């Protein structure tokens, strides 16, 4: 029987990998997700036939089904209720529960073990540390994503030496648990201290950098699951945990590259929102910024053949995605080619802007990645930038001393006319002025994103 169960676990792991492969194209992605769900169902059903569980009798099954029902109901509620704009919080929450589950499983296994092996104890300690850091770190991430705590408050002096000390204490406690595995109390003390470490590690990371932290915590939750797999000597946990661990690492690297930051730099919370060097805002903007109106932009559209819309964080904040969809359709009806340029860090997490626009019924083949669309700006009549700043700042290409030097940007300044919808000239996360706003071919449309787009739709209709 145990062999059959292990084969079922193998089938589940294969389905997970196939599911991830299918996730590489939007046409097959839904099917890929379903393959993953089927794999999970197989794994759960097979586990119900486990010898230990059968021996536990009715009470065991009742407890298991109660847990499945409660967790399933909570999960389904979250999944159905969550707003697409809150997806970073949702993912952080799921990361946290994943880490928490690993801590509990490892704890239970340690209690149950009569003659624990070295593999079991070391893996248990790893589960405890990684899992607790993931759980509490994710809760901090949720709080910070909602801007409930200011970055200044959480960057108290001496936090780095303090984290280092707490980390060393974790390792010492871990060695203790490995050495005397029957001291259960020590395991829970380790969990508590690791929890503090999780708070300390994620707290100083700036709100704007939080998506990197969420991707990294995603990776940790996978590693915690893999560690739990070593505790139980279970292949499916090890395989799946490594897949998720790899996924999180890749995504955090992509984000760091797109933000021109090193991972170490993001994690220590040293940059981001702090004063930057370079020319002052006055010297960049004075007397050169031209502001425009809905009617004027509508007239620009009238003579345009190609328009590229560049949505940024501001679009998500002002919930303008539906209004933008209306504008794009209106322009297309007038025979104008419309495409969307999506920077890798547009929105609040990797790929977030695509989800927001997909929710507003914008076809995904209109959503172009940066490398694909950049060469086309030269033949674009109007680039319409909505609530984006740093990701369209040409300084990244021109000034090697700038804090964003070398950061990949969308080359909107090469379009014939650039219209920037923005509430003010205030700087973005990098804290530097943007010469694009003062460029000869740029027009500033000062307004809230959604209101500006709605007014634009009206103005285009009246042409």
């Amino acid at each position: 029987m145990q062999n059959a169960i292990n084969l079922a676990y193998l089938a589940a792991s294969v389905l997970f990998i196939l599911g991830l492969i299918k996730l590489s194209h939007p046409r097959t992605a839904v099917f890929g997700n379903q393959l993953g769900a089927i794999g999970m169902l197989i794994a759960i059903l097979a586990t119900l036939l486990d010898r230990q569980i059968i021996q536990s009798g009715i009470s065991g099954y009742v407890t298991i089904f109660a847990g499945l029902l409660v967790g399933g109901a909570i999960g389904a509620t979250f999944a159905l209720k969550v707003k697409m704009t809150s997806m970073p919080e949702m993912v952080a929450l799921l990361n946290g529960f994943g880490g928490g589950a690993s801590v509990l499983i490892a704890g239970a296994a340690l209690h149950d073990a009569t003659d624990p092996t070295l593999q079991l104890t070391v893996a248990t300690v790893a589960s405890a540390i990684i899992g607790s850091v993931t759980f509490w770190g994710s809760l901090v991430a949720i709080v910070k994503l909602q801007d409930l705590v200011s970055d200044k408050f959480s960057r108290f002096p001496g936090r780095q030496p303090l984290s280092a000390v707490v980390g060393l204490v974790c390792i010492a406690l871990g060695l203790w648990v490995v050495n005397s595995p029957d001291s259960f109390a020590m395991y829970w003390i380790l969990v508590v201290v690791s929890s503090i470490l999780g708070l300390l590690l994620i707290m100083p990371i700036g709100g704007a950098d939080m998506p990197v932290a969420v991707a990294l915590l995603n990776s940790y939750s996978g590693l915690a699951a893999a560690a739990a797999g070593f505790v139980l000597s279970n292949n499916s946990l090890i395989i799946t945990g490594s897949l998720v661990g790899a996924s999180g690492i890749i995504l955090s690297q992509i984000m760091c590259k797109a933000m021109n930051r090193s991972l170490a730099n993001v994690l220590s919370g040293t940059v981001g929102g702090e004063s930057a060097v370079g020319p002052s805002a006055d010297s960049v903007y004075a007397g050169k910024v031209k502001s425009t109106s809905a009617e004027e932009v509508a007239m620009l559209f009238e003579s345009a053949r190609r328009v590229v819309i560049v949505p940024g964080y501001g679009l998500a904040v002002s919930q303008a995605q539906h209004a933008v969809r209306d504008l794009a359709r209106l322009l297309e009806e007038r025979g104008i080619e419309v495409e969307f340029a999506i920077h890798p860090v547009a929105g609040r997490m990797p790929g977030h802007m695509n989800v927001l626009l997909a929710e507003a019924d914008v076809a995904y083949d209109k959503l172009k990645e940066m490398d694909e669309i950049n060469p086309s700006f030269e033949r674009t009549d109007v680039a319409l930038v909505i609530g984006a700043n740093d990701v369209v700042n040409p300084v990244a290409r021109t000034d090697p001393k700038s804090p964003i030097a070398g950061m990949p940007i969308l080359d909107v300044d090469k379009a014939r006319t650039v219209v920037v919808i923005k509430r003010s000239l205030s700087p973005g996360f990098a804290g530097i002025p943007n010469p694009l706003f003062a460029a000869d071919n740029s027009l500033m449309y000062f307004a809230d994103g959604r209101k500006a787009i709605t007014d634009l739709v009206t103005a285009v209709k009246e042409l």
Partner: protein
Amino acid sequence: MDDFIMLFTIFVMAIFVGFAVINKVPPLLHTPLMSGSNAISGITIVGAMISIATPNTLTTILGFIAIVFAMINVVGGFMVTHRMLAMFKRKD
């Protein structure tokens, strides 16, 4: 020790598979990738179910909470991923 080497081999190989597979996922789908990978990391539910099966009350309680946590991951993860992916449409 032999068992450990076997498991560790699987672990390292799976990381390579992970890198190869995930690198092919386009940025367009990175958010569903994150929620979807969360869903499959709910495989810890298997471990949680086994820890319920022992007669010890404490581990049964720990196992129960772990099942709830993991099941939130599984159901929440797959459902929210489906919700997102279903919105991605081609121009018809």
